């Protein structure tokens, strides 16, 4: 028994240490993941309250939380924001290959526009021992892996946008029927102002944020942040991260 207790005492600090290390090493993903869950929960509560207020005004039955979470009204509100976020990163990843912004830490150095050489990108014969396997692989695997970040962001964007269109059609039609109007087909919804209003109001805000970040970071600093240049770096210094 004593030996077992001793073993537990030996392993417990080890486990705690490993957990602490894991939290420390993954702080960014964990913090944003937790904040995401809290924000979605808040959105669900506020969205349900707003939705129920409309239903009660029309003399209809309010919905409970599980029903709201599986409703098209909630789904379209979620997916319209997701698609624009992934579009923002997809565009940023691809556009910054070719376009530069003098003085911005978000940009490469001005002479490096383009996909760069294999030596600079550590691919093919220039891959190192610790490079991902597909960086050294020939043919399609290297080509796919060389664009995998942008491709995944682009595919998620398209899936979310498609999902927005489908759930948007259902939510729009539910509203149409509440107002004693005829529902519309998915193809017709894609031409409606509602679909483009939801889409473009999200796109414009994402594009503005990216443009603001590219320009503000030329002149402004955040000490210690890799998204900023070092505080003392020159305004003209490009592609320098703090």
């Amino acid at each position, binding site marked *: 028994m004593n030996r077992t207790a001793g073993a537990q005492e030996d392993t417990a600090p080890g486990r705690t240490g490993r957990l602490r290390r894991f939290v420390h090493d993954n702080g960014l993903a964990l913090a944003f993941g937790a904040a995401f869950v809290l924000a979605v929960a808040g959105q669900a509560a506020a969205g349900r309250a707003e939705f129920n207020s409309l239903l009660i005004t*029309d*003399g*209809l*039955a309010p*919905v409970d939380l599980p029903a709201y979470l599986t*409703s*098209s*009204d909630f789904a379209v509100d979620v997916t319209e924001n997701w698609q624009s976020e992934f579009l923002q990163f997809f565009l940023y990843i691809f556009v910054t290959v070719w376009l530069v912004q003098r003085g911005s830490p978000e940009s490469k150095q001005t002479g490096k526009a383009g996909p760069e050489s294999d030596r600079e990108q550590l691919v093919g014969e220039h891959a190192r021992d610790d490079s991902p396997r597909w960086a050294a692989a020939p043919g399609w695997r290297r080509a796919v892996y060389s664009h995998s970040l942008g491709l995944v962001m682009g595919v998620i964007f398209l899936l979310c946008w498609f999902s927005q269109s489908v759930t948007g059609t*259902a*939510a729009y*039609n*539910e509203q149409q*029927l*509440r*107002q*004693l*109007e*005829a*529902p519309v087909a998915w193809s017709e919804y894609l031409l409606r102002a509602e679909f483009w209003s939801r889409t473009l109001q999200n796109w414009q805000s994402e594009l503005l944020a990216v443009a603001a970040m590219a320009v503000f970071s030329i002149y402004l600093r955040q000490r210690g942040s890799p998204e900023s240049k070092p505080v003392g770096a020159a305004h003209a210094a490009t592609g320098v991260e703090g």
Partner: protein
Amino acid sequence: MSREKQRRPPPSRVRTGSRALLTVVLLAATTACGALAERRDDALATVTVFEQALRTGQKEPLCAALAPVTREELEQSARASCEQAIEDEEVPAAGAVRHLDVYGDQARAVLDHDTLFLAHFPGGWKVTAAGCRPRSEQPYQCTVKGR
């Protein structure tokens, strides 16, 4: 046969995770489809009850099939009970259901001679509007409706 050939490699975590995800997605899709079919059947059942009551002139089941807000509006505008008020309204017996749209808690049933709108309540589907005629670029014009 060598030992290496007999030994099967353990399934990778990624493959197991993908299978689990696929199972969850398929299960969710099947459940969603089943739930939608059930909702359509329930809405259709309310339409059938409503139309049968109209054909046979039974006022009580007719009023029971109306949504609370629709019934209230009918009684207030006629200053009479629903059973008395519904007699004065020109709601035609509409024949067979040609088309049914269900989106969330709302539905529209297009029949041979009428269009009904329905909403889902804790007690089941209820008729929110009846005797409805389509109008170009405007909501349907309905003989009986809520607010």
